[in-house]
């Protein structure tokens, strides 16, 4: 890992759906160890920026580089290594419906280290639940818990392997006050540990308290970027 280069760089990135540009010539850099909020109105392309940056979607034009290497040109092993060092918290939780909650958390661990024993996995899952105050039976399926609880489990799945880069897509959506408090505390913990955090959010308190850098998207284009103070006039319209 070369700490002098930004971990993720977009260069002229465009993405089209039905000949319409969902992302239009986006060029940006996410700084190492910083928290960045990608904001904008609904449909402006926030989630797409996160998914492209995480290598889950490939752009039609332009280059996205992870640690200086184009994600699109990565071979399988470097791509898997990149994924092992990043975590993605999905807007709609996206838990694996046909797996138990315990399996949802065990699989990321097994993908990085297949030698984990069943008891080690069980302990890790229990510790993980306890860290956000979740009192759930790990053998339950995602369909049997609330959306807010699913979001918390999704966050745990994204973070159980202690990633260096954390993508949070609308992290506080569907969350009640207590859940939000628990989640913010965990995000802060990651930020304090030096993780790079990239989030798409509408939550003004999260933007104000948690971010070092803000990027504003308008109709798929990067219309502004800077600190909270720099983009404050725009925030009043968007958040």
């Amino acid at each position, binding site marked *: 890992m070369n700490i002098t280069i930004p971990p993720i760089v977009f260069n002229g990135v465009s993405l089209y759906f039905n000949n319409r540009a969902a992302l239009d010539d986006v060029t940006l850099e996410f700084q190492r160890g910083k928290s960045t909020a990608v904001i904008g109105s609904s449909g402006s392309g926030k989630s797409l920026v996160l*998914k492209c940056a*995480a*290598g*889950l*979607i490939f752009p039609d034009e332009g280059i996205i580089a992870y640690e200086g290497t184009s994600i699109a040109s990565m071979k*399988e092993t470097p791509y*898997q*290594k990149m*994924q*092992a060092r*990043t*975590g*993605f918290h*999905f807007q*709609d939780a*996206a*838990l*694996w*419906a*046909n797996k138990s909650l315990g399996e949802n958390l065990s*699989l*990321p661990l*097994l*993908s*990085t280290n*297949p030698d984990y024993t069943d008891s080690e996995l069980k302990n890790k899952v229990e510790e993980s639940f306890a860290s956000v105050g979740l009192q759930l039976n790990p053998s339950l399926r995602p369909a049997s818990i609330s959306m807010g609880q699913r979001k918390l489990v999704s966050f745990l*799945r*994204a973070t159980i*392997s202690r990633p260096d880069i954390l993508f949070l897509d609308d992290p506080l959506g569907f969350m009640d006050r207590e859940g939000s408090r628990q989640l913010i505390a965990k995000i802060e913990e990651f930020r304090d540990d030096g993780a790079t955090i990239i989030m798409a959010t509408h939550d003004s308190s999260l933007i104000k308290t948690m971010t070092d850098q803000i990027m504003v998207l308008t109709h798929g284009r990067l219309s502004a970027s800077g600190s909270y103070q720099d983009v404050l006039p725009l925030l009043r319209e968007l958040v």
Partner: protein
Amino acid sequence: MVETIGLQVRQSIKQISYAAGFQLFLFRETFNFLSRRRIGLKVLIMQILFTGVEALSIISLLSLGIGAVIIIQGAQLPDFLLGDQLYRILIIVITRELGPLLTAFVIIARSGSAITTELGNMVVSHEMEAYLSVGIHPVSQLGAPRLIGVSLSMVLLTMYSNVFGLLGSLTVSSIISGVRLTDQMAALFSNFHMVDIIASVAKSFIFGLIIAATSVYYGFSVNGAVTEVPVKTIRSIGMSIVLCIIADGIIILITVLLGATNL
């Protein structure tokens, strides 16, 4: 006009290339699956359970019925129930043709459609992206065990179907002709050739690969809308049937060329 045709040809070539690339990747991941089976082992077991075990009752009923019907219909023909040719006809019709094909149709209807629907819904609910995000390729996690599970189940179910088909035939034949069932079974076994079993196993294995590969491909080809799922499922079923029948024709042609079809 020329431009439209050109665009369509280009689009078709692109689609065929993508499908071919996908299948190559799926088969490669299936070989790799054996080395990292811990992660996908449960998916494999569940697939064998759903495709193989849960289909036993319907396959039993269907095979017994078809076997019985062949004899009842055949009995209308003069001298049908006489001589060893009856056993050879039964063996060829049931083990080489109806067994593998009927089993394939049942598997397409039950498991092929279920695989496409399940994978399509997983695309829609971003579960595939979730696999990628934790460093697991969804094709290796979800496609490979299904390919192995369906192919394995297809071979075992076809053998099971053959047994029930022949049993149905012989039972009805015994009732009509008055010859004891045990005598009929002894005569049947003496007419069995190794090539019958090889042809049945080969066909069922190839049909299994076709059904699994087609269903997985169409499941993964859903782009993100829920309304695409039933459309892809219908296409998957139609394509699986067509490909199985084409493969059946090719296998018959090969066995004819090798001289392995003589009564």
